[in-house]
């Protein structure tokens, strides 16, 4: 039992102890400092996966002296967090779910601020031959053939909700589609992961245009069905009634719908022509003419 043998692990333990003393308080002030309040935003994955939020976050934080906490989730989950007050503001894209959220008084107002379109994407060869069809007919064809895989988000996100409403519009029951065979694949993942899965499987999937364009270089997928009223995709912001930081939430809403935010959204990803990811639309009817 020598003196030096005592020092080894003992020193390691005290180093860890010291570390925690230094670390925990170092993290705490970021929370407690009143001059940099945090705004918690639950945002749809399709908006996050494009990288748009990184641009918006930097601009907002520069102007508002407010730290944004961006938490990614499908619209369903995001709205649940908003309802329970776990986040201050939600950014989602599912008008029916948002309307229910407002009706339940979890938020006062839904403000649409940008739109793009959903697409049915799939292998370039379009093996199910749905290219010339409407979204509803395309879905019906996929279910009738039941041989070409279709990947569903399967996560109650805005995109998943839209997918189900297209099944309904096609006269099919989404619940029965779920159990109708191995061609229907439920991913339970965000938009980016779902696209990767569809590409790996050589499958069709429903995606928003923004995420698809952001990922298309890495994917063997092509837009197959791009026209139809059912494909309009509007993004909206709602300040939550139970927000812990209502001022910050309102500031973010004002930023997204204001000139600075709208310009950033419109300019995002416009380096190459024809690749506009989002169309800013605060204060307008948000592209309600789906014929383009």
């Amino acid at each position, binding site marked *: 039992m020598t003196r030096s043998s005592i020092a080894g692990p003992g020193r390691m333990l005290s180093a860890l102890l010291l570390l*925690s003393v230094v670390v925990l308080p170092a993290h705490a002030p970021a929370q407690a400092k009143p001059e940099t309040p945090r705004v918690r935003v639950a945002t749809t994955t399709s908006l996050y996966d494009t990288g748009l939020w990184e641009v918006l976050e930097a601009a907002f934080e520069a102007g508002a002296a407010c730290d944004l906490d961006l938490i990614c989730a499908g619209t369903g989950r995001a709205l649940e967090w908003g309802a329970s007050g776990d986040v201050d503001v939600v950014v989602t894209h599912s008008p029916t779910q948002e309307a229910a959220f407002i009706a339940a008084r979890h938020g006062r107002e839904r403000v649409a601020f940008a739109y793009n379109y959903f697409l049915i994407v799939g292998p370039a060869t379009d093996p199910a031959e749905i290219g010339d069809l409407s979204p509803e007919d395309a879905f019906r064809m996929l279910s009738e053939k039941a041989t070409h895989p279709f990947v569903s988000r399967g996560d109650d996100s805005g995109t998943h909700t839209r997918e189900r409403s297209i099944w309904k519009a096609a006269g099919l029951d989404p619940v029965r589609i779920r159990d109708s065979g191995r061609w229907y694949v439920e991913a339970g993942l965000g938009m*980016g992961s779902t696209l990767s899965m569809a590409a790996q499987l050589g499958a069709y999937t429903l995606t928003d245009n923004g995420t698809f364009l952001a990922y298309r270089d890495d994917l063997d997928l092509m837009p197959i069905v791009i026209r139809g009223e059912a494909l309009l995709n509007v993004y909206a912001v709602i300040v939550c009634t139970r927000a812990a930081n209502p001022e910050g939430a309102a500031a973010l809403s004002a930023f997204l719908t204001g000139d600075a935010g709208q310009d950033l959204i419109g300019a995002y990803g416009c380096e190459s022509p024809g690749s506009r990811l989002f169309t800013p639309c605060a204060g307008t009817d948000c592209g309600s003419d789906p014929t383009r």
Partner: protein
Amino acid sequence: MRELLVEAVRRIAALDPEVMDITLRTLLLSSSATVLSCLLFGPLAATIHFTSFRGKGALIGLVQTLYSVPTVLIGLLVYLVLSRSGPLGGLGLLFTPQAIVAGQALLIAPVVMGLAITTLRGVGSGVSDTALGLGASRLQAALVVVQQARHAWATVVLMAFGRAVSEVGVAMMVGGNIRGHTRTLTTAISLGIGRGDNAEAVALGIMLLVVALAVTFLANVAGRLSRGT
């Protein structure tokens, strides 16, 4: 595949700020959780070991069974408790680094307690009997036993840290994977795949592997030291 590895190694070599930031945060959070858990549950384990009561064997068995509690279940539990609608919702801790520390500390509590009890048992009763025979109080005798096992403590700490640093369930669910705030190696790797940035995911994966291997290596060294005495 090879380009991916090259790009990942390049980012690590260039000390890519994103990769370094996430790695440092992961180390800080998981070591904080480890220290917190050891401070809370180490003494508790010692108390269990040095006292005798009905059902002691069953309690220790239960603790050791809980080694393998799934991380997502702890994540779910801590999420439900810390959510605004949960019992501790008023603290506003959900989606903060502190929530990750608390959740990981809870996750590794069975490991800390179980290994601590095994360690104390390993010392054998002769040591405390001798101390008591020499006129030590029960507390003093217990401290002698704790001190006898000093090398083994490092193994306990490292094993606990290893479990904390490699888990993804708690960090994702109660941390929310917020960039620059609660993003850890494991949640960032998931996100890296999700966003199609495979190079970053691989770079972070290499960092996680290095951390995990280093922990195991140190635990082995500590184990050899403890057997050496």
